[in-house]
């Protein structure tokens, strides 16, 4: 599938009608989401024929993108039932077979190294400090091949250090820097926070090095 085609399909997805502030619900726009998954597939072969998990899937954009690019099994997880309902309609309309789970990503129990790749746009931690790093810590335990995630550029050094030292990632690389429009839907957002610099990261978990 071509990048433009992927971006077009993602642009047609329904998004949070009433975003919940405390869960940091804002969608990854079609431009960023399509590039994120397109790079994962075409530069790193982390998507097609893989088991992919979408952490904090919201209305499902990233998992839908993975399924469109040929992921064999997509497991999308969110704590919010209303978002999951929209996400499953989004998947159905594109005739994609995606599994959804309602859970707190930080509390779900896993067996075995079945997930290859985790993709996520975690809460940046504006409401709950460190939320994005909590997600990353779990993602690096669950994924056996790669983790793709978005983090504020202002936290770049911290993210790298923590991933490598505390979470035992065998690599942590910024793939590109992006401008992320956090919509003005939250009253507490000051104007300067509306358009923020965000890094797209690719992490390789520790276990992968051992198994190859």
């Amino acid at each position, binding site marked *: 599938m071509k990048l433009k085609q992927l971006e077009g399909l993602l642009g047609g997805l329904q998004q949070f009608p009433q975003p919940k502030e405390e869960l940091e619900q804002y969608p990854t726009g079609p431009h960023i989401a399509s590039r994120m998954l397109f790079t994962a597939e075409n530069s790193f072969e982390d998507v097609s024929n893989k088991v992919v998990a979408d952490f904090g899937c919201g209305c499902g954009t990233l998992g839908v993108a993975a399924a469109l690019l040929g992921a064999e*099994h997509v*497991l999308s997880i969110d704590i919010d039932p209303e978002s999951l309902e929209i996400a499953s309609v989004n998947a159905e309309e594109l005739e994609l077979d995606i599994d959804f789970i*309602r859970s707190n990503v930080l509390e779900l*129990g896993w*067996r075995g190294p079945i997930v290859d790749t985790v993709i996520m746009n975690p809460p940046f931690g504006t409401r709950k400090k460190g939320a994005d790093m909590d997600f990353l810590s779990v993602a690096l335990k669950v994924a056996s091949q790669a983790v793709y995630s978005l983090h504020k550029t202002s936290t770049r050094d911290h993210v790298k250090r923590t991933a490598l030292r505390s979470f035992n990632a065998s690599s942590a690389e910024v793939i590109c820097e992006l401008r992320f429009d956090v919509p003005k839907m939250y009253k507490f957002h000051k104007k300067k926070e509306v358009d923020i610099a965000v890094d797209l990261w690719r992490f390789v978990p520790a276990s992968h090095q051992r198994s190859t």
Partner: protein
Amino acid sequence: MRLLTHNMLSSNIKGVVNGFPLRIEVEKVVEKTVEMNGEFLKKMFEKVDWKALIDASRAMGYTELPEEADSSMLDSDEFLNRFHHALLEIHLEEGALVCPETGRRFPVNKGIPNMLLHEDEV
């Protein structure tokens, strides 16, 4: 929810030592046909817990998986078809996943399991 998903989830309630496999309570099963990918199945065969998969597929009413399986069977198309069907095509649409130690039910509605823990379970 596919049985592949079932094969990778476990109950994470505080104090539970062995939360896998979750028992399946079935109210409604749906089947959705997907294209078979032999390479994927071969890779998955190494990773799935076979016993959990047979028990789960039986609970869902599918009894064609052999009791014992080894990798030489992956050369048989008939075996691959059955494995494919059990792993990816049968979905638990309504019912529950039940913690094997505590009996706590995690309800499944419209195919979505609710694995959210109560405050005193974390």
